[in-house]
C-alpha cells in the first residue's frame, strides 16, 4: 500500500467521531439511566437504530437529512460556502452516529451498575445532582465508560456503509480505509486490500484487548 491517506483520514475521522459520540453518548446514557420521562423508550430505540439498520439505510437517511436540498444542508452551505455532504465532516457525522449506540449502551450499563446508596449518601451530604454525577456516579462508572469509548472508536474506525453513502468515495478527500479496501478489491488490487484489512483488524484487536483490560482491572 503506497498511499497512506486513507489510514490517516480514517484515524482522524474516528478520533473526531469518538469525541462527538463520547460527549453526546455519556450525556444520553446518564439521561436514560436516571431519567424518568415520557418517550424514554422511544429515545432509546432511536439511539439503538444504527446497530440494527443496514448501514446503507442509515446513510441514506443522513444523506436526506444533510443533503443540499435539506434545511440543514442549505444552512450549512450558507454559512460555510459549500455543501456538507461528501466532505470529511460528513464522514465524521456518519461515524459518530454509528458509534453512538455502542457508547450509550455500554455507558448506561456502567452508570446503572453504580451502588445507588453511594449516590444517596452524596445527596444526604448536600451535593446537587450535578455534583453527585461528577463526584460519585461517573468516577465509579469510569471503567465501563472507557470501554464504551473504546468500542465507539473501533466502530467509528470501521464504518463503511453510512460513510460511503453520505461522504462518498473520493480518493484523497473522503476515501477512508474501509472504503479503500472495498475499492482495491473491486479493482483486483488484492495486495492493497490485504494491507488495509490487516491494519483495521490489528487496530480492532488492540482496542478489544484494551476493553478487556478495563473490565479486568480492580482497584
Amino acid at each position, binding site marked *: 500500500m503506497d498511499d497512506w491517506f486513507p489510514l490517516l483520514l480514517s484515524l482522524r475521522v474516528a478520533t473526531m467521531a469518538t469525541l462527538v459520540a463520547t460527549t453526546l453518548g455519556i450525556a444520553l446514557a446518564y439521561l436514560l439511566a436516571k431519567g424518568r420521562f415520557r418517550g424514554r423508550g422511544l429515545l432509546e430505540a432511536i439511539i439503538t437504530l444504527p446497530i440494527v439498520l443496514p448501514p446503507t439505510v442509515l446513510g441514506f437517511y443522513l444523506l436526506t437529512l444533510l443533503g443540499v436540498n435539506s434545511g440543514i444542508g442549505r444552512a450549512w452551505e450558507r454559512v460555510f460556502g459549500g455543501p456538507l455532504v461528501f466532505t470529511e465532516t460528513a464522514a465524521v457525522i456518519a461515524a459518530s452516529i454509528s458509534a453512538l449506540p455502542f457508547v450509550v449502551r455500554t455507558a448506561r450499563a456502567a452508570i446503572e451498575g453504580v451502588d445507588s446508596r*453511594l449516590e444517596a*449518601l452524596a445527596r444526604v*451530604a448536600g451535593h446537587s445532582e450535578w455534583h453527585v454525577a461528577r463526584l460519585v456516579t461517573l468516577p*465509579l462508572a469510569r471503567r465501563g465508560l472507557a470501554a464504551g469509548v473504546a468500542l465507539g472508536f473501533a466502530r467509528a474506525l470501521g464504518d463503511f456503509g453510512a460513510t460511503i453513502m453520505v461522504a462518498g468515495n473520493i480518493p484523497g478527500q473522503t476515501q477512508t480505509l474501509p472504503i479503500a479496501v472495498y475499492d482495491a478489491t473491486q479493482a483486483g488490487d488484492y495486495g492493497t486490500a490485504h494491507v488495509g484489512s490487516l491494519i483495521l483488524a490489528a487496530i480492532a484487536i488492540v482496542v478489544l484487548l484494551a476493553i478487556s483490560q478495563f473490565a479486568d482491572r480492580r*482497584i
Partner: protein
Amino acid sequence: MSNVTITATTATGGSSVHADFVAGPGITALFGPSGAGKSVTLATIAGLLRPVTGTVTIEGTVVADAAAGIHMRTQERRLGMVFQDAALLSHRSPLDNVALAVRGGAGGRERREVARSWLERVQAGHLAHAPTAALSGGERQRVALARALAGDPRLLLLDEPFSALDHHTRVALRQLVLDIVADQDIAALLVTHDVDDILALATSVVVFEPGRTEGTYAVNARDVPALLRDMRVTPHGDPGP
C-alpha cells in the same frame, strides 16, 4: 421536645410501609424483622423516597407533606447517614470521603481540616490517607461515621451500622456512637436486629411488624424484661413466632 415525627405511608415496588412514631432526643432504635420497612422508613425521613400519604417533621420543620405537596430535597434536610457496609467511595481517600460531606462554602483546605478533626474524633486520624479499599470493617465504619457527622447534621440515620462487625469492634463503636450523640447533642435513629444494640444505646425503641410500626417503647433497665416480652424476642435472639 420531639426531633422526628413521622406519620406516613411509603410505597416501594408493590408493597407499602406505614410508619407512625415520634422520636425524641438521644438514640431511638427501629427494631423488627427483615423486610418490615425499617430502611424504607429511614429513606422516607431522608427524602430519598416520597411518602404517598402523611407527613414527616424534623425539629419542627415539615420536610414532607404528601397532601400539601411538600417535599424538602434530601440535600436540604441536614442529615448524616451510615449504612451497614460503610459504602465509601473507593476512588477517594478516607479524608476525601469525609471532606466531601463537609457543608457550606468552605474551601478545599478548610473542608480537609474539618474532615481531619472528625476523623480524629472517631479515632481514625491515622487512616486519613490509607487506601480506602484496604480498610477493615471497623475502620470503614469509623470513616463512615466521621463522614455522617462532617455535615453538621441535626439528625443521624444509622442503618445497621454495627451488624457487619465482630463483637469486639461492635462494642467499641457502640461506645463511640453513644459518646458522640451525647457530645453533639443530636438525635439518631438506629435500625438494628440486635437487642444488645438497643440495650446499650437506645432511649426508646420503635417496634416494626411487616409493613407497619407496631408501637414505641421506652428503654430502661427496669422495663427491659417487659420490653423484650412486648417485642416477642429473647435476649441475643431473633424475633420469636
